[in-house]
């Protein structure tokens, strides 16, 4: 078993003639927190779409634990261990929080759910996972509320929880702190750091404080390509990054 959980070689995505992503080589180490930063339009979300199978790679390959998954469909990739959260919260608003997580856990064995005679509660494992995630997200007091009635911070945490409930090996978080208040951000930071202990976490983030604070590796992207990669300190001090960001975006302190 290699130390690399997820890797891409020469990954490219074209929309018509537009190269949204080109020649991206990434190596994500197992049980590390790896962040992707870059200005808008850098191709970060496209990279996520390509990794989860939402869009097809037009060139290059993607490997999960050494296995080629370039042509694997998105729902198959979930079963292989890739899960994601969305930049724009995407929940089942009229279902209870716990039901949201139960569904996410059930999503690992979707064929079982095709049986119209099987009771939802008979999948004890899915329920256990849902409760475990609720515990970890500290959302127990509101677990029976409808997802649509939760506060924004709670919804963002549930959004991450949806990815966690799939019991993934690699977890992709697309701007988990977007729109959050200060207190919620701190909780999210703890959560991501905690996730890195038993998951491989890849996340897109604009909040440099968090990125510099909890990342093991930072990849900087620009115009669909990889610009620089390294530890937070290396990236912060890189002259090219400073030029790209005009020096004023990376301000977070390094723990």
């Amino acid at each position, binding site marked *: 078993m290699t130390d690399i959980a997820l890797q891409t070689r020469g990954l490219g995505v074209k929309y018509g003639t537009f190269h949204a992503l080109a020649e991206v080589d990434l190596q994500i180490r197992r049980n590390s927190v790896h962040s992707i930063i870059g200005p808008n339009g850098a191709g970060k979300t496209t990279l996520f779409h390509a990794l989860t199978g939402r869009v097809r790679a037009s060139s290059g390959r993607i490997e999960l634990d050494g296995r080629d998954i370039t042509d694997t469909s998105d729902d198959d990739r979930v079963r292989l261990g890739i899960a994601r959260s969305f930049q724009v919260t995407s929940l089942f608003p009229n279902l209870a929080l716990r039901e949201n997580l139960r569904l996410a856990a059930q999503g690992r064995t979707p064929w079982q759910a095709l*049986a119209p005679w099987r009771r939802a509660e008979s999948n004890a494992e899915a329920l256990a996972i849902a409760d475990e995630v609720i515990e970890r997200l500290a959302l127990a007091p509101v677990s029976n509320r409808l997802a649509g009635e939760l506060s924004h911070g709670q919804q963002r945490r549930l959004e991450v929880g949806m990815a966690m409930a799939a019991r993934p090996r690699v977890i992709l978080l697309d701007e988990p702190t977007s729109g959050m208040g200060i207190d919620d951000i701190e909780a999210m930071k703890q959560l991501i750091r905690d996730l890195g202990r038993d998951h491989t976490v890849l996340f897109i983030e604009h909040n440099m404080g968090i990125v510099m604070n909890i990342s093991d590796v930072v990849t900087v992207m620009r115009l669909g390509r990889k610009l620089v990669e390294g530890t937070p300190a290396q990236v912060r001090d890189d002259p090219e990054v400073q030029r790209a960001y005009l020096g004023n975006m990376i301000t977070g302190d390094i723990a």
Partner: protein
Amino acid sequence: MNPLDKPYAQLALALLTVLVLPLFLKSGILATEILIFAMVVAACNLLLGYTGLLSFGQGIFFGIGTYVAGICLTRWQVPVPLVLAGAAVLGAATATLVGWLSIRRQGVYFVMLTLAFSQLFYFVAYTFSGVTGGDNGLLGVPRPSVGGTALNAPWSYYTFVAICFVAVFAVLVMVTQSTFGRTLLAIRENEGRAAAIGFPTRLFKIEAFAISGAVTAFGGALHAMLIGVAPLSNIEYHTSELILIMTIIGGSSSLFGSVLGAGFYLLLADALSTVWPRWLLLLGLVLVTVALFLQRGLWGLVERGYDLVFRRERAPETPAEEH
């Protein structure tokens, strides 16, 4: 959640309906028709309320069940249980095909496709009149018999249909409570997310179609035995429209709402059509009124009534789901 929405409450209400109808209605035929449409409308609701698919093609499956009964009973004397099973299987197969093609397009295109398919099957039935009897339909469809005696008296056939209705309704309640039904709700709520957490959403939609088609065709077969004919009108656009209208009037948030919708429509039709042949004009106005003032349908009214009587906190009026 309103206690009336709980599965056992729904089942109890269905049982109650079966017992109460004979007390209030003089016509056993009307009562039987209400139960048949109640199960057919509940099947439409499985698509509309639980999956978020507005199908204008339910008449296809109803008509297919009607013709299975018509052909098997007038030409070949097939035993009734086999006829009902055959109708359900053929209904499911057709619904699988129609569903598979229709869900290739989304939103309003999907609705338009289901309507166009209902025309397709109507013209199939119309064109191949050697099989279907064309405009005349298939005459002389017999009632089933139990222990050697045919159920020709309206209320004895009512009993037969009532047993079928309770069984079908129980099956539909089970389906909606199952892990499958709960996944359908998730697909209705947010299809993109349901796919992202690993569900092959198309397969779920097609299965919902198949179940709905099976129940609808089952009802269609019962209907042919009720009226003694397999008419062309059962596969017409108007039947699809009728089933959909009953579903929305009843309210798409609960299965029992569909029973209310079917009952309301058929009782209204029975009362008005003898007084004024152009009563559909009034129905048109009823539909506009429902859309403006009663978006959760008759079931919404029941829930509000329950809350008022039992002084519970009134549930916020949640807008119906986008399709």
